[in-house]
């Protein structure tokens, strides 16, 4: 009896094992969101027509395309609608994009491969090498382009005479990268998620202190002077106020921006092998000293982002935030303080007219894609008003528009800070700082923190940063 049972057990176990193995197989539609319920998805919009939907043009469906287009998206995307736990607002899922694209390209099926930010570079690398998708969201574009994993887009742009003028100034150039055979940065991706950092200030505190609001494009001296006036006991409320704050974690980026306003720049080159850094320039040292001085006007825990948690709220006690992400407009909406806070532009280089770390996300086509023409159509679609309005309406917490047309949207006009945000996105330093992709970023950051802690003088720390970073660059050749 036991023997008979053991034979059955062997057979059952083998079958179970095969079942488990087959379940592990990445068949179509298992891990990806291919959205078979498109009919239902259309009905789920609940009658609330978004601006994205109104932008869905009645254009003639494109012919000659077929097959499945796989699109990888990184971040807080969901295929179905989902409700924000903080605001309670429901955002429509990316199925809206799938439906619209499939309507424009009959016979085509879009599959999304959605993933979070955890180790996204490593995951994207694996996907690019194995051809897991056709279109990729690649904020780390330079690394992949250098390996020859991304398709150069210039031939497609020329073939279709695609107008890059639809994008905000600098948004295309910001994502330029160099492939293995390139002599200069070329276009490997088109922007679809915009991002920037801005100066944001609390108008109420300015009023209480009797200080004039910041100008739209303030100088470092203006910021320091006004922040100094607003540090101390508030003349009306009597509570302790701080003139300014910044993000301690990326204080190095703030220093770099101040450096730009003083006429300096991070360095030159693009690939590690021909990169020259200017961390120990006179302007960098001056910029670091400026931030060390400004730290005296900030809450005690500024280096670890403590002490300014109430910024954007009603009970705020900090006048100026030197480095706010554009998502702050969502915070203002949540706290009902849209009229209390205003934005100003980051500092700009006097000659180049740009400044501040470029950020966001572009789409690119993998060289392993089997459907490159269709992938290119998706890239063009991502710059369409329909796509951009969907991102603005439904994904505002993680995306700002990258097209000029956004300035005319009613909901954009109704947001008081958006005018400055769009301007800021048009004047970010492009191409983006390439040194941030490796050790020089961490070396600079560590030494800026040492200056702010008073462990080293600005000159010594910047000299050390330059030496260490240059040594690291040498090791990469």
């Amino acid at each position, binding site marked *: 009896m036991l023997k008979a049972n053991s034979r059955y057990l062997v057979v059952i176990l083998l079958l179970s094992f095969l079942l488990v193995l087959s379940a592990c197989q990445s068949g179509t539609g298992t891990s990806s969101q291919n959205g078979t319920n498109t009919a239902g998805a259309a009905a789920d919009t609940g009658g609330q027509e978004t601006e994205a939907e109104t932008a869905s043009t009645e254009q003639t469906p494109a012919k000659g395309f077929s097959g499945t287009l796989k699109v990888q998206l990184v971040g807080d995307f969901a295929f179905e609608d989902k409700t924000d736990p903080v605001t309670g607002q429901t955002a429509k899922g990316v199925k809206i994009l799938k439906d619209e694209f499939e309507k424009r390209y009959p016979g085509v099926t879009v599959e999304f491969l959605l993933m979070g930010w955890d180790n996204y*570079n490593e995951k994207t690398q694996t996907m690019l090498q194995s051809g897991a998708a056709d279109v990729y969201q690649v904020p780390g574009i330079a690394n992949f382009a250098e390996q020859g994993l991304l398709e150069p887009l210039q031939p497609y742009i020329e073939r279709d005479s695609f107008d890059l003028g639809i994008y905000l100034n600098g948004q295309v150039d910001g994502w330029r990268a160099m492939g293995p055979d390139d002599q200069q940065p070329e276009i490997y991706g088109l922007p679809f998620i915009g991002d920037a950092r801005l100066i944001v200030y609390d108008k109420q505190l300015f009023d209480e202190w009797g200080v004039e609001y910041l100008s739209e494009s303030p100088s470092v001296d203006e910021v320091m002077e006004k922040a100094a006036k607003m540090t101390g006991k508030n003349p009306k409320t009597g509570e302790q106020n701080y003139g300014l704050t910044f993000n301690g974690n990326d204080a190095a980026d703030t220093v770099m921006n101040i450096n730009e306003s003083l006429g300096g720049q991070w360095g030159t080159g693009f690939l590690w092998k021909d990169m020259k850094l200017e961390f120990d320039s006179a302007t960098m040292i001056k910029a670091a000293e400026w931030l060390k001085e400004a730290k005296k006007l900030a809450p005690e825990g500024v280096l670890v982002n403590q*002490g300014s948690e109430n910024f954007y709220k009603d009970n705020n006690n900090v006048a100026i935030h030197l480095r706010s992400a554009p998502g702050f407009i969502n915070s203002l909406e949540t706290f009902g303080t849209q009229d209390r806070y205003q934005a100003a532009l980051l500092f700009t280089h006097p000659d180049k007219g740009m400044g501040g770390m470029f950020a966001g996300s572009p789409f690119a086509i993998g060289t392993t894609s089997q459907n490159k023409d269709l992938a290119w159509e998706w890239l063009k679609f991502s710059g369409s008003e329909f796509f951009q309005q969907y991102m603005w309406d439904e994904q505002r917490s993680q995306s700002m528009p990258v097209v000029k047309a956004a300035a005319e949207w009613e909901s954009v006009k109704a947001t008081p800070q958006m005018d400055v945000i769009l301007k800021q996105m048009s004047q970010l330093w492009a191409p983006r700082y390439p040194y941030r992709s490796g*050790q020089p970023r961490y070396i600079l950051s560590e030494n800026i923190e040492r200056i702010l802690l008073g462990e080293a003088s600005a000159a010594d720390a910047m000299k050390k940063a330059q030496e260490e970073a240059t040594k690291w660059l040498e090791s990469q050749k």
Partner: protein
Amino acid sequence: MSLVNISKPRSQPIGRWRLAPRRESHAVWYLFLLPTLLGILLFTLYPLAESLRLSFTRGVSEQFVGVQNYSDVLASGTFWYAVYNTLYITVFQLFIAIPLGFLIACLINSLRRTSNFFKVLFYIPNATSMVAAATVFLAILHPDGPLNYVMELLGLQKVVWLSQPVSAKWGAVILSVWHWLGFVIIINLANLQAIPVEYYEASSIDGASPIQQWWWITVPNMIGSLTILFVLGWIGGLQRFADAYMLGGLQGSPARSLHTVVGFIFERGFGGSEYGIASAAAYILFVFILIFTYINTKLLRMKI
């Protein structure tokens, strides 16, 4: 009805195969082990071998560079500062948590009632994820947080815990002690309850005081538990990452004061795609753990 029909042949053919009786019996158990063995092979042994290979390469092209990555790591000031931070936090964690946990375990063991309540109370932090615990500690260690409130009540000066290198490290020590204390108490309690009560009865008859009993009976019988806690604590401490990462971010701010060895590996591997350097640092950490564990077991005369 007999469960085992011994009159039947011990083996029947399965298709064309016929296994020897003993082999068939073993085959079943190997089949049971197969998923685990495959898991170990694919997710432990293969990554280990691949990591070793990567540690001799550099760049996206994985160019062979010999032991260059190892020498670069060992010559890196950042790496040795990360080693110092790791040892600093670990040493204080062990030297605070183990004696304190032992004392609390003794107190709980002496309770006639409510001992279970205290067991649960002290063990809850250990059952909490380190990420969640560290998030709470970010609030506790806030300049206007409850820890500073208590310090001010005691007449002590307010500390901006995470903004200065030394106090930031102590913030990590406090967090790690709080998180690990429950485990230390539970292990000690298990051992305390295993000490035969006759020892205490005999010593009472001989006139030993409670303190003498604790010193001459309890402590010697606890050496095994304390030793294993020390060794496990060292190994876990050298691998520390989550607490320091949550409090100090990727770079272990401020000024790398919370940058640990695993943080170094993480930054170089996932922050800069330098997998060769990260793999070499991982193997160096492995050697460190091996050496420390060997020394610990020899010093503490532990039999493993």
